[in-house]
Structures are given as structure tokens and as C-alpha cells.
């Protein structure tokens, strides 16, 4: 009986025409007229028409890609706003701690004068040397000012006592202009205080101590920063493509039909890149030490552990984009959108402390901000976990947040 015509879509000459899909529509395959004209090669006109055909197709496809359209507008806008408002190469209001070994009017005058330069903002008062060092070591402040005991007495005697200013010079840019401003301070600070003898040289001296990077070698700051930046970029991209690739290649449906959970898929996809990221980090640090003589004062194990944490955090963020995007291009664009503020607001290119408050808040939400503090502190200051626990916790929180979004967003069904 049946079987002569293999498919349901056989020719049916009847009023119940089989027109389920476009396959048997007319005008689908009528090449003769057009094609002959193209074959003759009408030269430029036809070539332009073909260019036009391609152009129209591209515009139509682009119009349907909302994410691409959105990035076309937001990336330049974001750049402009960040560069225009957030970035300040002459950072002011840098967090400063003071250690008062004596309480005197003159000391207060000097501190006020320092704040008046608008470079320093006294945020903490240390109780003792230990706390003073810890504040600098942990990166809570960029400067520490110590007014030694007997400062006022020595000043009145004309002994030219020294005001100690310790600067965190891991970022030479951030510390530079503030330190420069200190030189004029000695002459102007006590101008209005009575009963201080006018004198040249000035009545006291400022003894600055640029800690951690005394020679202000920019490589010492750039290499650890670059480590974080490179890891951010590569890790984001690796996993950003992870889920969309499955969707685009048509393997997702089969994967979803298998007994494997979204968490299992995520962990399985992230794990190999943790190793790759770790190797990358080793390579960069190794090159930094060998080629640029960047020191590692801190604990290597701590550095390795927190670097792994940072790698996992970025992989999780990339994976989240992968579950949000519809295709690989969108995932790449999302990664770029995320990478840009990481580059600008983390303190890598421009001093973090110089940014306005809102930009600092945004910066706190970026993994690179925390990692830069971690890696610079461990390598250049020899900081320990006790100094860095805030940033370490921040990385864990960001990672878990990204993973939660990813798992919740991962479509377990095709609905």
C-alpha cells in the first residue's frame, strides 16, 4: 500500500493543499531570469546590488540583536562617564591616619594645615605604633602622620623637630602629588600661630618615608596590577562562552536531557579553567620577578590561595554572563562591559582613593579592586591574611553571588 512516496509532503493535487511549511511554496526556486543577469556580469551595478543585499541582511540581523545594540550605546557612554567623572590623576582626600605622641595646639595646627591642602583626609587616629603600622599595612590608609613626643617643646626651642609622614608608595601615582604638597607645608602651616619664631630654615621638618616602594618604581606597582587585570580578562572570556557555546552548537538540549544538575555543569565547566588561570598567574608572577625584579615580601601560599579565589570569582562572573546571554557574541559583549569598569575603577590605571564616593562604591563591587589590594599588599608589603581578610571575604561573597545568579538563571528546561 504505502511506501511508494516516502514522505507525507507528497504532491497533492487537490483543494486540501499540503502547505504546512514553506517547502512547497512557489517562487522559492526560480533562478533563471535573475541568475542569468548576474552571470552576464553587469559589472559595478550588480556588484553594488550584491553589496546592498548583504548590507540589508546585516542591518536586519543587527536590529534583532538587542544586546549588541545596547552595548553600542552603553560602552562609549560608560567610558565617557567613567573617564569624565570618576577618574582623577591628582587624587585628593587620601585616607590618612595620625599617631599623636603628644597632644598640642601646634600639632593640631599642622594637621589642620595638612587637611587644608585637600590631599589628606584624616580618617583614623592610631593608639600606638602597632595600630599605626597595621593601618598602613592593610591598606586602610595611604598615609600615616606621626607627631612625636615633645614636638611642641622642641619647636619652641628652635630644635627643628621632625614630623614623620609614612606613605604607602605601592602606588606611586596616588602618593606622589600629596607628598609634593608637603614641602610647602612647613613654611605655611604655622604662619598664624603666635609665638613661633619666624625662621629660615622652617621651624620643623617633614620626614617622609615612602614605604614598600621607596624608589617609586612603577613596575613594582604595575606588575601585580597587570596580573589581576590579565586574569580578569582571560577568565571572564573562558567561561562567558561556556554555556552559550553549548546552546549554539545544539548540544544543550541533549545535555539538559541528561541526569546532570546545573550546579554540576557549572562546577565541571569552571574547574579546568581554575588550573589554567593558576598557571597563567604563575607565569606572570614568575616573569615579574625575573624580568622586573618585583619582590614578593609576603607568603607565597597565601598569595596562591587568594589568587585561586580571585580566579574562581572571575570564572563565576563569566559563567553568569554565559547563562544570561543568548549567544557567544552577547556573552563576549557582556564580559567587555564588565571588564571596562574593572580596568578603570579598581585602582589599576588610576588611584582608587582619588575617585569620588560613588565610584568607590562601584569599585567595591568589582573583584579586581579587592584583588589589587591583596596582590600589591602581599607582594610589596608582606601583608598577612589578618591585614587582608576584608578583601578576601569580599571576593568570596562576589563569587557566591555570581554562582547563585548563574545557577538560578541556568535554564533547566527549554521553556
Amino acid at each position, binding site marked *: *500500500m*504505502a*511506501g*511508494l*512516496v*516516502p*514522505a*507525507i*509532503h*507528497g*504532491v*497533492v*493535487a*487537490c*483543494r*486540501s493543499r*499540503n502547505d*504546512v*511549511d514553506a*517547502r512547497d511554496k512557489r517562487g522559492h526556486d526560480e533562478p533563471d531570469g535573475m541568475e542569468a543577469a548576474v552571470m552576464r556580469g553587469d559589472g559595478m551595478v550588480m556588484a553594488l546590488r550584491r553589496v546592498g543585499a548583504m548590507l540589508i541582511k546585516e542591518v536586519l540581523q543587527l536590529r534583532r540583536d538587542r544586546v549588541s545594540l545596547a552595548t553600542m550605546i552603553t560602552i562609549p557612554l560608560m567610558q565617557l562617564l567613567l573617564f569624565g567623572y570618576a577618574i582623577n590623576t591628582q587624587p585628593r582626600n587620601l585616607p590618612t591616619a595620625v599617631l599623636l605622641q603628644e597632644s598640642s595646639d601646634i600639632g593640631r595646627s599642622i594637621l589642620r594645615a595638612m587637611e587644608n591642602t585637600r590631599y589628606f583626609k584624616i580618617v583614623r587616629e592610631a593608639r600606638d605604633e602597632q595600630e599605626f603600622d597595621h593601618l598602613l599595612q592593610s591598606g586602610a590608609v595611604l598615609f600615616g602622620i606621626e607627631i612625636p613626643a615633645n614636638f611642641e617643646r622642641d619647636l619652641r626651642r628652635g630644635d627643628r623637630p621632625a614630623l614623620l609622614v609614612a606613605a604607602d608608595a605601592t602606588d606611586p601615582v596616588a602618593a606622589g602629588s600629596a607628598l609634593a604638597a608637603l614641602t610647602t607645608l612647613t613654611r605655611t602651616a604655622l604662619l598664624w600661630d603666635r609665638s613661633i619664631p619666624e625662621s629660615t630654615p622652617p621651624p620643623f621638618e617633614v620626614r617622609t618615608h615612602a614605604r614598600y616602594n621607596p624608589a617609586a618604581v612603577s613596575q613594582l606597582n604595575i606588575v601585580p596590577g597587570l596580573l589581576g587585570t590579565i586574569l580578569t580578562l582571560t577568565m571572564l572570556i573562558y567561561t562567558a562562552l561556556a554555556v552559550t557555546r553549548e546552546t549554539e*552548537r*545544539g*548540544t*544543550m*538540549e*541533549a*545535555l*539538559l*536531557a*541528561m*541526569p*546532570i544538575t546545573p550546579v554540576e555543569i557549572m562546577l565541571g565547566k569552571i574547574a579546568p579553567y581554575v588550573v589554567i588561570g593558576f598557571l597563567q598567574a604563575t607565569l606572570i608572577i614568575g616573569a615579574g620577578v625575573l624580568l622586573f625584579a618585583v619582590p614578593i615580601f609576603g607568603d607565597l601560599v597565601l598569595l596562591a590561595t587568594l589568587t585561586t579565589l580571585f580566579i574562581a570569582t572571575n570564572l563565576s562572573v563569566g559563567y553568569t554572563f554565559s547563562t544570561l546571554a543568548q549567544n557567544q557574541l552577547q556573552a563576549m559583549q557582556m564580559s567587555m562591559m564588565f571588564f571596562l569598569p574593572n580596568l578603570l575603577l579598581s585602582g589599576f590605571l588610576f588611584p582608587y582613593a582619588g575617585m569620588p564616593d560613588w565610584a568607590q562604591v562601584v569599585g567595591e563591587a568589582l573583584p579586581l579592586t579587592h584583588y589589587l589590594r591583596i596582590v600589591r599588599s602581599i607582594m610589596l608589603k608582606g601583608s598577612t591574611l589578618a591585614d587582608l581578610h576584608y578583601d578576601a571575604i569580599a571576593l568570596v561573597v562576589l563569587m557566591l553571588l555570581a554562582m547563585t545568579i548563574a545557577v538560578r538563571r541556568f535554564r*533547566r*528546561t*527549554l*521553556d
Partner: protein
Amino acid sequence: MSTADERAGPDGTRGADIAIAVEGLTKSFGANVVVRDLTMQVRRGAIYGFLGPNGSGKTTTIRMLCGLLTPDAGRGTCLGYDIRTEGEKIRRHVGYMTQHFSLYKDLSVRENLEFVARVYGLPSPRRAARAAIERLGLDDRAEQLAGALSGGWKQRLALGACTLPNPKLLLLDEPTAGVDPKARREFWNEIHMLAAQGLTVLVSTHYMDEAERCHEIAYIAYGTLLAQGSVPEVIAASHLTTWTVSGPNLAGLAETLARRDGITMVAPFGTSLHVSGPDRDKVDAAIADLRADSALTWEPSEPSLEDVFIDLMSRGQGGRA
């Protein structure tokens, strides 16, 4: 081959002999109703053919059966597990072969099979993959990338991957599309062998000859199940009267016949035409004068499955318009 008796149990849904039992399944995407109030049962160990034109809801139904889509309405079980809430358990026992090749093209045959074996937690993935390669006759191609295989081998590999974890139910979505006749025949022999071992197979297809190799078939068009049963049952239930006519100028004859009242379908089959209609008297009346034409040879014939389906489809469409 009739299964009417087995299907008639008062509470057959959880019965041991029923693999799939769903009722009232409905699914729409936006305003478009893709599957409408679908009720069906598939007996364990049966090869159940799922037929219908493109876009009729076959794939959507299969996806609902294995928990990849959530039905808007309706309920049912697959292997005794609720399709709404127990998708995880269903996945463990179902092998789903998607319409498009969905193994990793950049992995070799062996690597693909080992991946599947590992995901399903088979005790020895390497050994399971090796055994599957031998069973599939893929020894020479074990290290070849899956993407480099020809259509027939790809399909074979996909079936092998589906059956690797020893599923109880196979859902095959147009498995033989674009595969040559020889490979198709081998594929169906394999399906029958699996069914003989107790595996239930639900297979969607466009091909009539494949439909006739199923124990039972269901015809779905525009999201609605229009007929189900064994092939003879479906043909008998259509109540279609069909004549086969041969002679000169069949194209002209077809046009004449198509316009006549009582005739719903005229289809050319090689050197003859199949002329069908749902009402015997009307069909006979419509062709009466042409039967007198001595140039034409008229023979009463049984409608083919294809006749039945096209008739069902046009009626289904008419009912909705």
C-alpha cells in the same frame, strides 16, 4: 497487534505495562498553541510511531515527556514518574535522541560515549564506551571526531549514545531524517531488536514506510492528536473510500476530480491516481460518469496510510479554520 485491551485498564496510568500515559497535555508559546489537549498511552516494549507534518507539535510533545518543557495544562507519567515534578528521575531512565545531532563534534566517538557514560554514572565508563563502539561497529572510527562522521554514522553514534546508559524508554525525534535507505533499514532493525529486549521506543517520523514498522502509531497535526492505534486500526477508522485510477492524461483527470463534490483528495501515485473521499456514496456518484470512460481503469482499493493522514490533516485544518 491490537493493544486496545491492554490500554483499557481502569487505572492503567501507573500500571506496570504502561510506559507513557498522559492526558490533556497543552503547551503554547506565546499566542501559538503548539500542543492541544493531547492524551496518549504507550505500552511498555512497544514501538510507538509519532507522525505528523512539520510544526505539528511532535518535538514539543517529546520534550514535555522527558521534562524538558513544562506543560501549560494536563498531567501524566513517563515510566511511572510524574512529568511535571519528577523530571530528574525520568532523565535517568530515558534516552533522548534530538532532531539535530547533539553530540560534541569536537570530541571523538570514544570521548563522546565516555562522556555520556560518566554523566549517567556508569561504573566503568571506558569499558561501557568500548562495548558500545563494538556493538555499533564503530571500531575503525572510534578516534575520529564525531563532527567528521557521515550522516548515517552520526545517527548510529547518536543512537548508541542514547542506549548506552541502558534506558527503559527511548525518545527518538526524527532519527532518520536525511539518512540513506540502507542506513534507515539497519536503524529500524536495531530499534526492533531493542524493543524485543523490553525497551519502549517512541519515534517521530515523516516516513510512511517507517510508520508501518511501528507497533502502534499516533498522528498529530496542528497540535492535536487525530488518530492512534495500529496501522490497520487507523486505516479502518478513517472510513475513507479510495479508488485507484490509471489511464491517459492523469494530470487533467486529477484537476477534474479535485473539483468534484464528495472527493477530498486526489493524489498521483506513479502511473495511477488515488481518489478518496469520506462518504462512499458521494465518491461513487462523483466518479460515475468517468468510470464509463473506457480509456480509464478503475479499481477499488484500500486507502494508504498516507491517504489517511492527508485526509486527517485537511479535516483537522478545516475544523480549526
